[in-house]
């Protein structure tokens, strides 16, 4: 043996290192970028706890009080609609907005790398102006638009907005909203502010995954009608620092049925009285539904539907039907047992129970009519 094992190992390692160093800088950079992206995705998953499971996991997070910064210059995303993305009089509904987002290839856990292009004539968002919390799961966003075409304000009034929530370059959630009635404020003929009600912020990883407070970015993806009534979709970039507190902040323990504030008749208010977390740790409330994500449903949502006037459909015995759903898929009647829901007459609402224990109580604030509404 002319050399020791130690020397030979060193020579072997040095040789491998020398060969590794022969690649060009560009290749190294590309490899590094790929690794950084992988780390970002994994960190995003770790931030939110459970594994990212795509769009089937939908749940609400409370959005804390936020001060918004000015957005970036208005830009847009071309050609994002499909034939199924019908735009109604009030703009896209939430499911349509999310379909729009998915059409753009924006998915949970993926890097957010949109390629923006300018779209003439339509007034894009130039600045996200302000946001405030309205309820535990609701918030409003005021958006400033540049009016750069005739009829733009009438278009703005029909806007709805889908937003992508991004952290460290990775998609971690979505939100969607509609303009608040009469909220369009025209400034000097060149600028307008539109307030949007965004009923939920959807965490990619579900409600049981705590999302820490921190600096997130919110990118807007819009569906809109142009002046000729044709479907046109633009995406507009803006940023939004979001403080997302632990849901427990908004989930008081114990029976809160006596002190819950009533809803406004169109959007329910709720108190989660579920210390076990059996319903998950958050809820999404739309104008006609309340959505929970119990852990035992394995990512599916548990849904209660109510009417736009605040009435809650129920059987004569007070049973409120429960549904299960996954994002983008039709709902099914919940048949697995375990969870039950009952009608609460006044102020009208519902309770969800499990094994006789009330997990959540909600009211739409409506004074009900005496006649029960058949449900199925």
């Amino acid at each position, binding site marked *: *043996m*002319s*050399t*020791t*094992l*130690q020397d*030979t*190992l*060193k*020579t*072997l*390692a*040095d*040789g*491998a*290192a*020398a*060969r*590794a*160093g022969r690649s060009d800088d560009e290749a*190294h950079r590309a*490899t*590094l970028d790929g*690794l*950084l992206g*992988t*780390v*970002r995705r*994994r*960190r995003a998953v*770790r931030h939110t706890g459970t594994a990212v499971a795509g769009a089937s996991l939908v749940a609400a997070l409370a959005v804390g009080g936020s001060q918004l910064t000015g957005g970036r210059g208005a830009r847009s995303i071309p050609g994002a609609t499909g034939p199924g993305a019908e735009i109604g009089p009030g703009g896209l509904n939430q499911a349509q907005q999310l379909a729009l987002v998915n059409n753009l290839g924006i998915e949970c856990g993926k890097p957010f790398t949109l390629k923006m292009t300018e779209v003439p004539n339509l007034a894009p968002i130039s600045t996200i102006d302000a946001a405030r919390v309205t309820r535990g799961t609701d918030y409003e966003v005021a958006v400033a638009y540049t009016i750069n075409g005739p009829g733009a304000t009438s278009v703005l009034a029909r806007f709805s907005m889908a937003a992508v929530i991004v952290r*460290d370059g990775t998609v971690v959630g979505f939100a969607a909203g509609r303009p608040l009635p009469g909220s369009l404020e025209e400034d000097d003929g060149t600028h307008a502010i539109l307030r949007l009600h965004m009923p939920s912020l959807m965490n990619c990883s579900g409600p049981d995954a705590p999302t820490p407070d921190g600096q997130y970015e919110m990118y807007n993806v819009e569906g809109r009608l142009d002046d000729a009534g044709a479907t046109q979709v633009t995406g507009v970039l803006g940023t939004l620092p979001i403080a997302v507190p632990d849901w427990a902040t908004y989930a008081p323990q114990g029976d809160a049925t006596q002190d819950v504030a009533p809803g406004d008749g169109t959007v329910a208010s709720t108190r989660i009285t579920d210390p076990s977390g059996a319903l998950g740790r958050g809820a999404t409330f739309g104008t006609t539904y309340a959505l929970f994500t119990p852990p035992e449903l394995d990512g599916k949502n548990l849904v209660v539907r109510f009417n736009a006037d605040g009435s809650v459909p129920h059987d004569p015995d007070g049973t409120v039907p429960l549904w299960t759903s996954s994002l983008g898929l039709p709902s099914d009647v919940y048949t697995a047992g375990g969870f039950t829901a009952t009608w609460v007459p006044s102020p009208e609402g519902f309770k969800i129970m499990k094994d006789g224990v009330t997990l959540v109580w909600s009211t739409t604030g409506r004074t009900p009519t005496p006649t029960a509404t058949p449900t199925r």
Partner: protein
Amino acid sequence: MASWQPVMEQLFLNRRAALIGYAALLAGNDHDAEDLVHEALVRTFSRARPGLVPEAAESYVRRAILSAYLDGYRKRKRWIAVRHLLVPRAESDGPERVTAQRLEIETALAGLSPRERACVVLRYYEDKTTPEIAEAIGISDGAVKKYLGNAVRRLSVVLGPVPERHIEAITVVKGRD
């Protein structure tokens, strides 16, 4: 930019080659070594480690390389057992590979079990003590001594008489310190 990102970038750009060199001793070829390094970087930086500096990060990554190597071999044990029968060696022959002795050592290393190989690399390349090796691999001191003893014995068949510094390791095994 997140605080971990510049640390990872700096480590990758400045220490990538050295890490691949280390990984190659374990993996036995350049391609697997590069994969090990990438996997180790992802493992290391996917976890929150406040205040991590590049120097400390390299230690984490080296440890992760070792873990990834041992984990990977556990998973691919059956394939590895027959791989040499089916797959020709893929790495290119650089000038540093030409000596017969080096090839013999590579062959001898390839004949070691993953844990034996890991122990050899940590002992003779990383210059770690028996307790340090035991801690790094997550096995007992006695097991390290056993693996080192077996490895050196098997390497001796290829390498000929084991130099004195290597005998020391075997003596340690026999002495049960």
